[in-house]
Every structure is written in structure tokens, then in C-alpha cells.
């Protein structure tokens, strides 16, 4: 489990580099990605299906990204984009194409629909995460402002 977490963190870090995330935010991006993967694995372990697990993981990712964006004064996209890649249904696309070529159409349809379900779950996760009002997160941001101001004085 710890190895999984570590690999997820490193993979997300690699994505952060690919997307030119500012250097001082690498760590936060990577931790967010690792967290998303852990939630996903945990949900799978509890016997929840892949789409719903993706939903919970994306929801966590989005919320954490918004909290981080308020605390770090960065657009939330910075933390969200790299982290979400651990959940994107890459294997779904592969198996769909593979079964299509192998002419196993029923398996192909099943995989194709599953891929769309996962994509839909990610969509819902992000939408739920975004639905919370921004003012809550702004309050968090102001908290750090005060701390900074206090530090300066």
C-alpha cells in the first residue's frame, strides 16, 4: 500500500513537470495526486465499483485542490490537473480498442460503456467539488492572510 502511494505521488509529480507547474507547488500537486489514488484504492478495497470509487476520489481531489488554491494563492487548476490523471480511464480506452480489433464485440461494448461510466463519474466528482460556494474557501484564504500579516509585524 505504501509502495502504491509512493508510486502515485511520483507519477503525479512527473505530470506536474509535464504541465509546467511552478516549482514551489510540485510537492502539493504530488501529495494531492497520491491522496486521490489512496481514496480510489480504499473505495475499491471496500467493494465499491470502479466508477463510484473514481467519483469519491475525484471529489476529494477537487476539494483538496480548492483548499490548496485558497491557501497557496494559486489557481485551483494547478493542483487539479496533474492529480486527476491517476484516475483517467486509460485502461478502458485500451481494452475497448483491443476488443474491437479482436472482434469481441460484446466485451468491447461492455468496456466502452464502462469507460464512459468512469469518465462520467469523474465529471460528477468535479461538479460536486465545484458546487461548494467559493466564499467558504475564501475564508480559509483570509486565515492565512492574517497569519502572514501577523508574521510581518
Amino acid at each position, binding site marked *: 500500500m505504501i509502495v502504491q502511494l509512493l508510486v502515485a505521488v511520483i507519477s503525479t509529480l512527473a505530470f506536474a513537470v509535464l*504541465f509546467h507547474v511552478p516549482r514551489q507547488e510540485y510537492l502539493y500537486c504530488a501529495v494531492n495526486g497520491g491522496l486521490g489514488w489512496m481514496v480510489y484504492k480504499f473505495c475499491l478495497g471496500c467493494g465499491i465499483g470502479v466508477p463510484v470509487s473514481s467519483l469519491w476520489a475525484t471529489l476529494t481531489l477537487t476539494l483538496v485542490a480548492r483548499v490548496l488554491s485558497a491557501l497557496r494563492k494559486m489557481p485551483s487548476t494547478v493542483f487539479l490537473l496533474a492529480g486527476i490523471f491517476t484516475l483517467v480511464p486509460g485502461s478502458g480506452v485500451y481494452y475497448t480498442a483491443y476488443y474491437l480489433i479482436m472482434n469481441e464485440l460484446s466485451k468491447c461494448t461492455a468496456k466502452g460503456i464502462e469507460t464512459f461510466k468512469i469518465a462520467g463519474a469523474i465529471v460528477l466528482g468535479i461538479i460536486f467539488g465545484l458546487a461548494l460556494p467559493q466564499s467558504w474557501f475564501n475564508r480559509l484564504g483570509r486565515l492565512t492572510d492574517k497569519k502572514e500579516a501577523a508574521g510581518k509585524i
Partner: protein
Amino acid sequence: MSKSKVHPRRENPVRKVQRNSKEILNLAVSMGEELLKNGGEIYRVQETVGRVMEAYGVQDYHVFVVTNGIFATVHEQEEDAGSMVRDVPLGDINLKKIAGINQLSREICQGSLSLGQAYERLEQCRNATPLRDVFLVLACGIESAGFCFLLGGTPFDSIFSFLLGLLLQAFLVAGTKRNVSKFLLNILGSALVTAGSLALYGMGLNVQSDRIIIGGIIVLMPGVALVTGIRDSFNGDYLSGGIRLMDALLTGICIAVGVGASVKIFQLLGGGALPI
């Protein structure tokens, strides 16, 4: 400010005419363009342009942003009316520039920057040295290896996934420099990874070729387009969100085509069915 020297005009006694409205418009739209080009969401672009205009005292403006264009006017009814249209092709994601522009717009809103300083900062942000290609290639390799492992591959598979990831990103970097179309890059890129993995399998190595392929194609997956498309739609920009989601869908299909073509060729060469 240099403009007012070229066209000296008397001050309007009733209402102070803003002579630099065109420059303000240009600054705001250029900032918006930079955001949009590097993968910002529509509402962020719209908000940034509006805030910059207001910070410099322009109240009467209109901005319309879609995924690949910005349209803006200032002071439509007045003497110094100005308008701007920018065509913004979809580009690579560069979150550093988005963060930089975001910071710049925050400082402008606090009123601490003059117009000239703001232009300077914008230039700095635009010309920020990009990461060296070597790092990108390395990152792609690490990412491929990581995902191969996460999705059930063995460390042995990950080594090959790492090498294929390096190859893929090198190919993508070279292709982008030669302005190869994005769809072709996706098809060829996924075909390349699949072919490489199947070749390893064909050589009799004990590898799980499917895990290696999935690790490799993750970098091509339209995750960014998906996320940005949802965020745009969620904010009511259905047109822009639709463009992004369509992009995501087409990219997904392109990847599938590339993988499929490679697998088919492998079959025709006598490789038979692959173990799943």
C-alpha cells in the same frame, strides 16, 4: 501614454476622457490571451480581463471569450471607442504561465502597478524560459513507469514502460516542433507505444504488454480537456465546454485508433491473440 503625445487633445471639461483606454484594453486582452492559450478556463479569462480593465478605471467594457478566441470592446459609445479580436489556437498546458498571470492580475487589482510596469511583467511572464525538453522526456518516462506499476504491472514491466515513455515524449516533442497535427500525433504516438510493447512481447520477453501500453498512453489521454471542459460547462460556458469535451472525445478515439492499428498489424504478422 505615448499616444496622447501624438494626438494632443483638450481635456473634456464634463467627463475626463480616458486617452489610454486602448492600451488598457490591449493589456487586459493580452493577459487573457496568455491565460487561454496555456489552458485557462473561460471564466478565469473573462474575470481577469474585466478586473484589469476596472483596476485601470475602465467601467464600460464588454468581453466575450470562447475556447479559441477573445472579443472585447471598450467605450463603445464614446470618442475613444476601441475593440479587439484575438484568435487563440489551443496550445500546450503551461500552468506556470497561468499562475504568473494570476499573480500579475492580483497585483494590478491591488493598484500597485502602473500600466508600463504591468506590460513589463506581462512580457516577463510570456518569455519565461520553458523547461528543457530533457526534463519533459524524463518526466514522461517516470510517469509511464509509475502508471504501469499502479495498474498492476511488475517492476520488470515498468522498466520497459519507462523506456517507451521516453521514446513517446521525444516523438511528441519532435512532432510538435514540426507542427504535426495533434490528431496525427495522438494516433502515431499510441501506435508507437503499442508497437514497442508488442515487439517486446514478440521477442519472447516475459512482459505484460497490456500494462506497458496503458502506462504509455496515459500521457496522451485527454484528462486536461475533460477537466477544463467540465469546468467551462459548469460555469455556463456551454459552447466552450462543448469544444473541450469534443476535443477530449476525439482524442480518446484517436488513441484507440492508434492502438487498434498496431494490434491489428501485429496480428497480421502472425502474432496471434494477445494474453490479457
